[in-house]
């Protein structure tokens, strides 16, 4: 479903991605793991062109999104993204946050969009917050709304950029549960995370990145029990 070939990204003199090649299958759940500064987030952000790759190609269902002629806005509608800091629209209610893009981008009828939004809010357990403003929500609630907002566009792929890093510890679980149930539903997902337990349980594949390179690409069991590279072993030693 996603094909990445020879992807590099350079900020000024700093090469953050040093040639990444990989394939993500439909329905695959990928957890991206690695030390900070290894390029995980940059890699994720390249997948919906929030960062423009310096070299290399990315195709999604055969569409080369790195091709300047591609209508990237259309492709982005199919790729949901959840950010570390939620980025809910503060001047809109929860319901309006969720219905905004379906109505304004997809042209959905407001009534239909609202019905769909309420379904999604029920799914993330926030039915009672539809008319609240984001400032009234806890971090965990905000992140669940953000997930609902992305899902409202009915994406084929979901990208999570450290979705629990900005949360108080007691709120991590409620968000991970939502993501896990999404993974179980067969969504293609890439998740940048520091939650090793979650990665081990929920992911089909672990990508271990270090210094801009995709060092390991293995099953969770294998990665966490017998990492192949010395760098991965050292990393696991530090975090576990």
């Amino acid at each position: 479903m996603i094909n990445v070939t020879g992807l590099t990204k350079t900020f000024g003199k700093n090469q953050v991605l040093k040639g990444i090649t990989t394939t993500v299958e439909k329905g695959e759940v990928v957890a991206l793991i690695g030390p900070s500064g290894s390029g995980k987030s940059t890699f994720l952000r390249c997948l919906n062109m929030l960062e423009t790759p310096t070299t290399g190609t990315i195709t999604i269902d055969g569409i080369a999104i790195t091709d300047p002629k591609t209508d990237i806005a259309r492709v982005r509608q199919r790729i949901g993204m959840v950010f570390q800091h939620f980025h809910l629209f503060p001047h809109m209610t929860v319901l309006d946050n969720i219905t905004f893009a379906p109505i304004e981008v997809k042209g959905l009828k407001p009534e239909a969009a609202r019905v769909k939004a309420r379904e999604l809010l029920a799914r993330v357990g926030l039915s009672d917050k539809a008319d609240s403003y984001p400032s009234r929500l806890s971090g965990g609630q905000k992140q669940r709304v953000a997930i609902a907002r992305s899902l409202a566009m009915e994406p084929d792929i979901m990208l999570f950029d450290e979705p629990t890093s900005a949360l108080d510890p007691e709120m991590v679980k409620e968000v991970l549960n939502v993501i896990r149930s999404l993974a179980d539903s067969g969504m293609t997902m890439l998740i940048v995370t520091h939650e090793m337990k979650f990665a081990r349980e929920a992911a089909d594949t672990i990508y271990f990145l270090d210094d801009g390179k995709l060092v390991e690409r293995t099953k969770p069991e294998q990665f966490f029990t017998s990492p192949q590279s010395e760098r991965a072993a050292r990393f696991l030693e530090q975090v576990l």
Partner: protein
Amino acid sequence: MTRKKLNTLFVALVAFLLLFLMTGPAGQASAAQAEPKKKLVMGTSPDYPPYESVDAKNNGEIVGMDIDIAKYITSQLGYELEIASMDFNGLIAALQTGRVDFVMSAMSATDERRQNVDFSDYYYAARNTIVSKKSAPFETLESLSGKLVGTQLGSTQDLFAETIEGAQLKKLNKIPDLIQELNSGRIDAAIVEDAVAVEMTNANPDLAMNFLPADLEENGYAIAFPKQSELVASFNGVLSDMKEEGKLDEISRKWFPEPEKPADKLLGINIDFSVLKGYIPYILKGVYVTLLFTLVSALFGLVWGTVLSLFKISGIKPLEWFATAYTSVFRGTPLLVQLTLIYYATPQLTGYDIPALMAAGLAFGLNSAAYLSETIRGGIMAVDKGQREAAIALGVPYRKMMVRIIFPQALRNILPALVNECVALLKESSLVSVIGVADLMRRADVVRSNEFRALEALLFIAAIYYVLVLILTTFARMLERRLRRSD
């Protein structure tokens, strides 16, 4: 030359606007019913009481000594009189192009003018007059030696005062300014025309006047006609009859009354708000003009300022340069200069005779946009960059993102600055009176020059401005609270 050039232009424009704003052209009412009677059109610049002025208290009709004389002469000759109000500087041209049949506008018969028009006999001669405090009067030119003497800039008396030996001159723009300077003792005396002096002393009982001998050659007023006009002889005939019968004196006595008895004064403060009686509706109409003008220029400034701010963050070099240069120029030059330039240069450069109100709205909008573009740019930059990324990730197109996601948040950031700008615009709008827009300030000036009182009208409009600003800030606070409901 009896008059100040620039001021006349401004005042004439006001008078013109007044006619339109308040009553519609006064002269046309009589024109409509003139079927069999022959009609004469008289040009005048109604900004010079008591010769001719707009009667702001009563429907804005044009009244004055010249008007009474003209009415008498034309009725004697069997004509219907129509009055065309125009800028003093345009009167000669109006005669030459046949738009008017004759001109009476306290016009001196100078040699320069005689080359272009014919004049009747003199019907009145203005006298130069010394006005000073009653407590320290000056009666002769000699006594002014070594004194500080005020004059109105560009007036005949201003030129005349140059010849007073030993006197030091202080030239002011307006008659009310002279009064104020006299009252506060900053000048010892003022030299003005007799008609003006009568009004000054009437309105200010503390002031005394002393007429200097009349000089027909210098200050004689006459009726102007197109060259070779057959009317000159018949007008002169009626004029000499009027002089003999005392009709002319009768009319001039009506318009140049003896000084009234001094009014009682309280605590020596020379402020009497009763002079505003009758002018209140006239001044209050200026609120509408001021508000309309502020609204138009604020909206224009906001829209254009937004466009400029988008230029600045567009990342397209030529647009960025343009917006930066624009801001630099409009912030770096005085608003008054921009206003005057736009008003006077537009007709010369484009041939389009830009109305004063439009020129003013344009100047203020353009200027305000320069300031607002910086404010808005700052407001946009202050919106979390994650908002933009979230919108992009959802596939929201740029325009929709800016309008629906970024601007509402930027607006909240900059609302206090926007309110400040509106308050500033509201107050600075008083500058537009310079090009004759009939706003609050202009109307106060009209009342000041009609009543020859310096302070009352100013205090009154200051209070109005203050109330308007209070209303505006209250409204803004409500809006801010509404925008903050999401916090």
